[in-house]
Structures are given as structure tokens and as C-alpha cells.
């Protein structure tokens, strides 16, 4: 039975490889071109460093403002989609809506917002808000569903109002975890925002795409290096802060 299942998976993967035309030979034939690509990127062009840094700042701005707004917007949605605190009717409506919107990726939202409000960092930021709000709401609601009921009972027993119960019984239990998730989403959003420029939604991706189109590989490699360093620095700092929270 178990062996049959593994065999089935193997057959499926081979079928997919055939269907998608995946072949090691093609990869090997492409290697010289890749090598040529890398060779033409060296040395990087230092002249575009100021532009690349400006792009990096733009990307971080998009991620920072977008994540911050989403972090706040997701709080009510998180409570409304948590089984143990939301009214049942609302719980199903909000949870279904969130599942629907979360299936759309940041880049797709960026395309929609560029069409709606025009080019620049603003549609990129809106795209980050749209996706991050739904994904944080999901993480928040799972955190809320996992709280200890004891302290909540104790606060209810004091004669507290429902809002006071949330503030004093629930919030202190979930807030550090919320912050940790927000930082984690910020890290992912910096990475996601690097490609937003490809669809005209601001940030460092715009520079990368422009130089690649101009076949200016040394400048593109400067942008790429700045991107790598930026993501690594953000990940490092954010991970340090998260380690202190939980």
C-alpha cells in the first residue's frame, strides 16, 4: 500500500517532467550562456551605486509602511476570524473572505493597483498592505485561538466588560507573538517588494529591470548586490529583534 503510494508519486513527477519539457540536457546546453551572463556582470558598475541605494531605500519604505498599516488593519480581522472570540456568524464570513483574498499574491495585487492608481511606489505599498493584511489576520487568529483560557476566565470573573477582557486577558497573551509575526512579514515583504518594480510599482526592481533591458549587465549586477545586502541586513536585524520578543 505504502509502496504503491510512493510509486504513484514517482510516476506523477516523471509525467510532470515530460509535460513541462524539463530536461537535464537542456540545462547543460544552457550552462555556457549562464556563464557568459555572469562573466558580463563582472565587474559591477560602481557609478550606479547611488541609484541602486535609492532603489533599496524605496523598497524598504514600501515594505515598512505597507507592513505597518497591514499590522494594524489585521488586528480587528484577526479577532473576527478567531473561533474562540468571534461571533460564529461573523467568524465564517470573515474567515472565508480572508481565505479568498489571501490566495492572491502581492505581485498580482501590484498589477491591479498600478492599473488603478498609476505607476510608482504607492501602488506597490497598497499591494503589500492588501496581501499582508490577510496573511497577518490569519496568523493573528491562530494565535488568539491558542491562548490560555484561564486568565481570560479570571478577567471575566472580575466584572470586566468584553473590551476589557480582550485588553487585559487576551492582548497581553498575544501581543508579543503578533509583533514577532509582523517582523517576519516585514522581512518577507522586503523580498517581495524587490520585484514590485518589474510591474512598475516602485523600489529597486525598477532599476534591475531597466538595466537588464538596456543589456547593461555591470549596472544590473550592482543593483543585484545591493538587493542581496539589503535583504540580508533586514533579515539579520529583524531576527535579532524577534529573538528578544518570544
Amino acid at each position, binding site marked *: 500500500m505504502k509502496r504503491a503510494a510512493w510509486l504513484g508519486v514517482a510516476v506523477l513527477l516523471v509525467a510532470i517532467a515530460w509535460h513541462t519539457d524539463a530536461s537535464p540536457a537542456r540545462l547543460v546546453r544552457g550552462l555556457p550562456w549562464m556563464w557568459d551572463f555572469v562573466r558580463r556582470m563582472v565587474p559591477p558598475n560602481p557609478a550606479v551605486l547611488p541609484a541602486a541605494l535609492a532603489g533599496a531605500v524605496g523598497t524598504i519604505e514600501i515594505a515598512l509602511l505597507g507592513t505597518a498599516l497591514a499590522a494594524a488593519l489585521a488586528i480587528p480581522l484577526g479577532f473576527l476570524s478567531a473561533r474562540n472570540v468571534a461571533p460564529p456568524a461573523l467568524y465564517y464570513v470573515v474567515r472565508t473572505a480572508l481565505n479568498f483574498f489571501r490566495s492572491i499574491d502581492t505581485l498580482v495585487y501590484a498589477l491591479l493597483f498600478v492599473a488603478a492608481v498609476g505607476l510608482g511606489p504607492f501602488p506597490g505599498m497598497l499591494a503589500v498592505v492588501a496581501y499582508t493584511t490577510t496573511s497577518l489576520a490569519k496568523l493573528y487568529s491562530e494565535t488568539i485561538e491558542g491562548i490560555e483560557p*484561564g486568565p481570560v476566565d*479570571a*478577567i471575566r470573573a*472580575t*466584572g*470586566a*466588560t468584553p473590551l476589557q477582557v480582550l*485588553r*487585559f486577558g487576551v492582548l*497581553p497573551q498575544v501581543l508579543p507573538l503578533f509583533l514577532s509575526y509582523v517582523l517576519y512579514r516585514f522581512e518577507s515583504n522586503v523580498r517581495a517588494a524587490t520585484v514590485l518594480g518589474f510591474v512598475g510599482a516602485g523600489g529597486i526592481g525598477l532599476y534591475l529591470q531597466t538595466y537588464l533591458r538596456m543589456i547593461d549587465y555591470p549596472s544590473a549586477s550592482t543593483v543585484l548586490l545591493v538587493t542581496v545586502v539589503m535583504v540580508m541586513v533586514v533579515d539579520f536585524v529583524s531576527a535579532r529583534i524577534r529573538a528578544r520578543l518570544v
Partner: protein
Amino acid sequence: MIEVRGLRVVLSPDTVALYGVDLAVEPGEFVVIIGRSGAGKTTFLRAINRLVEPTAGTVRVAGQLVTGADPSALRQIRRQIGMIFQQFNLVRRASVLENVLAGRLGYVPEWPSLAGRFPQRDRALARECLAQVGLAEFADRRADTLSGGEQQRVAIARALAQEPRVILGDEPTASLDPTLAGSIMGILARINQERRLTLVVSQHQLDTALEYGTRIVGFRAGRVVFDGPPAAVSPEVVQAIYGEEAA
């Protein structure tokens, strides 16, 4: 002070926790409830302030009807009923003082409290209650840095901060070693004597129950099977409450 009539609690269609309990507690009594686990002790205590919703029957505390009270009236009654729990139920990440201040939530203005602002009078009262359980200098410590016995004393201070008419205790010493259990029961006995505060506390240790209670109530399988002074708890009574034979 507490008047319970025909209290029936059905937790799920096939679990009846209490089959119509009648009990009247006079002001100043220290009632200790005993019985095997699953006898209905916890459900009884939680039904008094409606943390568990009674299925039938009435509960009155200090003359006010708890059963059927609307949410706002229920909160007015709850703030007069302090409660302590087996697991202490402090908010771990909050400071000791914040935990005690929670006892004032039923009295202070709602919106400022949500921003963490409490009137000076309530802060002073919270510190006073903390001093009464001997933990004045722990006010700014995080609650989860305290030992179990200390956490339960904070929980008692939180209950005292409610300036309650009644304190309910759901197995408050079951998570503590015997020495600490004795000291917690001692603090409760002192509160009972000094403030003439009415206490209803469940206790799984029979000897502790008999040592501290002024009145013993025995539960078995959702019914009261004994009600009397500690001196009246004979071996036959113990058998009736804890015995193995079919109830």
C-alpha cells in the same frame, strides 16, 4: 450571602454536572467543598458567577439574582465576587501590579482603563491588597517570574482588590506543595476572620478541608451528600463522599 436553589448544569447533552443543588451560605462562613474529581465542585463554583451557564435553578449573591441577570447587571454582581483558581490564572507577561489592578476593572471607567489608565485611588488600593498578601515589593516584577505560591497570593490580592462580598476558590492549593497549600489556606482563613468575608473554596485534601473550613459540603456525582460542621465528618460521611461503591 449565597443562595442556590435547584441548580442544574448540563454541560453537554450526555454530561450532567449538577442535578439540582440547594445550598445557602451565611455571611462570614468559610465553606469548604470536598468530593472526588468529577463530583461537580468546579462546575458548582463557576456557576455561582456564571462562568458556566446554569441550565436550571437560581443563584443569588448578596441578595441579587445572578441567574437571568443581563450582561451589565451580571458584571455589577461579578465585581463583588472574587475568584481564585487552581492554575492561578494570572496574565503571565503582565506585571504583578497590573494583575492586581485587573481586580478593579468592574469599578473603573472603561475607556481610560483600556489605555492602561487607572484612577490614583484604585492604584493605591491595589498596592494595599498586594501588601496584605506580603508581596508589596514584587509590584513591578513580571507575574511569571514568581513561584507558584507567590502567584496564588497575587491572585488573592486581585480578588481582594475587587472589595468583594464573597470569594470563590476553585482548588486554590491543588498545584502547590503541602507547606505552601497550608500558607494559602492560612491567608484565606485570616481574610475570613479579619474581614468577615464569605468564602467558598473547594479542596481535594480532606485534612486541610477539616482544618480550615467552618462548614463542610460534600459533593458526589453532581449532588450534595453532606453538609455540616467539620466535627460531624465521621468515617461514614467520608465513605459516603469518597467511597468506591456505586452512588
